């Protein structure tokens, strides 16, 4: 099986503060990896540095995506190569229609990859197919990006965009937070439908609940900028029972 993502000894600094402190992770096609850990352990930092956020400085180690060191690539270049980050806090952008923005996103990628622009007809077909996947309200498609959306609607919109972009590597940063159980099922169902032998998914969460619906092949515990434990899905149940306090204890010992 070929490797989609290989993170080696990753150290990352944000505004002079060392957040990631030697992180290793390998993900192959067709796999789902869950990353769990207490608040502040560095989960969102990891997703941001993977997606190429400026000011997130890699001070040691490297990120290989499909065997290429992507440390110097811009966020859009990473997106064009098939990476997607569903934000923990999707940003509201007033005055920019959701649907126009997505069409531009697709066409910017087509342009970068030397492909034809998508026709209006194909685009609309794609929109209706993909939005039904997460039950995104029709009204929301034409509204400004995330403006006035409820927490749940924002998360659905993230998965809708993911569906539109058909990424090779998806990173879902706490997509479950703010979702009630029905929405959680719908969103999980969307993610599962998009899963294939060719792509890979990282699910970041700190509740086990989501993993009942998106079943991971591997579970990792991120603590203080490092992966301190890896296992199969039973590790998540373990964590649910024991909480995270034992981590602090282990670290102290």
């Amino acid at each position, binding site marked *: 099986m070929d490797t989609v993502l290989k993170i080696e000894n990753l150290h990352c600094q944000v505004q002079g503060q060392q957040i990631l402190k030697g992180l290793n992770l390998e993900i192959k096609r067709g796999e789902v990896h869950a990353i769990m850990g207490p608040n502040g352990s560095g989960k969102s930092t990891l997703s*941001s540095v993977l*997606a*190429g*956020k*400026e*000011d997130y400085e890699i001070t040691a180690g490297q990120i290989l995506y499909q065997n290429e060191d992507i440390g110097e690539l*811009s*966020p*859009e270049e*990473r*997106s*064009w190569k098939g990476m*997607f*980050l569903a*934000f923990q806090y*999707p*940003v509201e*952008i*007033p*005055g*920019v229609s959701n649907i126009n*923005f*997505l069409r*531009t*996103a*697709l066409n*910017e*990628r087509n342009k*970068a990859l030397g492909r034809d622009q998508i026709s209006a007809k194909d685009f609309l077909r794609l929109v209706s197919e993909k939005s039904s996947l997460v039950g995104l309200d029709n009204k929301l498609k034409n509204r*400004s990006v995330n403006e006035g959306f409820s927490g749940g609607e924002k998360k659905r919109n993230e998965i809708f*965009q993911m569906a539109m*972009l058909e990424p090779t590597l998806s990173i879902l940063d706490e997509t479950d937070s703010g979702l009630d159980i029905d929405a959680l099922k719908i969103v999980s169902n969307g993610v599962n439908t998009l899963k294939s032998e060719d792509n890979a998914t990282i699910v970041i969460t700190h509740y086990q609940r989501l993993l009942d619906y998106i079943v991971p092949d591997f579970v990792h515990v991120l603590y203080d900028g490092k992966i301190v434990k890896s296992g199969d899905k039973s590790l998540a149940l373990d964590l649910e029972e024991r909480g995270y306090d034992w981590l602090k204890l282990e670290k102290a010992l």
Partner: protein
Amino acid sequence: MSTLNFNKDSFSIDNLSWASVDAAKLPKKSEENWRYLKWGKLKKINFHGDFKNYLSDLDDLDLPQLDGYTIVIENGVFNDNLSHIPTHLDGLEFSFTKNNSLVKEDSYFDVLNTCFVNKSVNIRTVANAIIKEPINIVNVITSSEGFVNTNTHLYLSTNSSLTLNEFYLASDKTINGLTNHQCSISIEKEAKLVLNRYQYPNHNFQICKDVILQEEDSYYTSNNFSSSGILVRNDVRVKVSGENCHTELNGIFTPSSNEFIDNHTLIDHAAPNCKSFENYKGLIKSNGIGVFNGKVIVEKDAQRIEAFQQNNNILIHDDSTVYSKPELEIYADDVKCSHGSTTGQFDDEALFYLRSRGLSQDAAMEYLTLGFVHEILDCFKNLNHREFILKKFLLN
């Protein structure tokens, strides 16, 4: 103390006028209303007043498609050939004649305007006339280092309505020209005026002053778009003298490198039961300087006024500058007024969000720009014009 420089022989004004011109002085930095303006670039130029008509085709100018009727004023003079306005239009009278300025002289540029203007554009609606077609005034300067003075009188009679689009621009190779414009507007009872103004004099200077008088039940909206110009100064003074009026001032200003755009507005509520709304947005590019100074006065007997004023600015670069000063002076006690001003940069997180979905840095910036100005952009009801200005501030 200083004045502008003129090549006197090139102007055809009399000695008496020259005496007034020579006696007047440029505003000093110590005058609050002019404190941010630097006259250095203007003072270096030796302005002339020797104009011919140079334009042979409107297509040579950077204009959007113009619907309705068009009046072309080239270097301050009515260009009959390029204009398109019938002499007898139902409900509307247009003339280009000698006329005394109605604007009270209180600055150097007011004095110059009085002395140099020869003829004015006069537009008058007849009572009860609803003018469906918009009137476009294309005010173009076509001679480098030229000094152009223009004057417009707008008179809306009772219960009439009109939309006016004004374009201030320069022809392709014209640089360092100065246009000094005054506009007096009188809106009678129940009349309605929408004034859309598009300023992009590029490598030229512009000073612009509007004085508006509103009678009861009247409606006035101005939508102002100011982009490129070495120096652009706008003074808007609205006096609301009758009850139940609606006053709305919307603006976008976007100075680029080494450009200066200075907006001063005043809404004076002298009568009760009126509403006013002011919303200006500054998008300040690298090395550009913008000013917003907006004042609302509610006079003692003007009760039950609702006045809202807002100015938001985005500094595109660390070297962009804006001075924002919203002011409220309230002498009545039963009023609903608010004002606010914000200055910031585009949200990095929003930029990252858009780029993470595959938008290039430029495309993402365009979207954020659009998001920032859409509220004002939507005030320009003509879709062609809206497209036109959108392109302007994305490119500019």
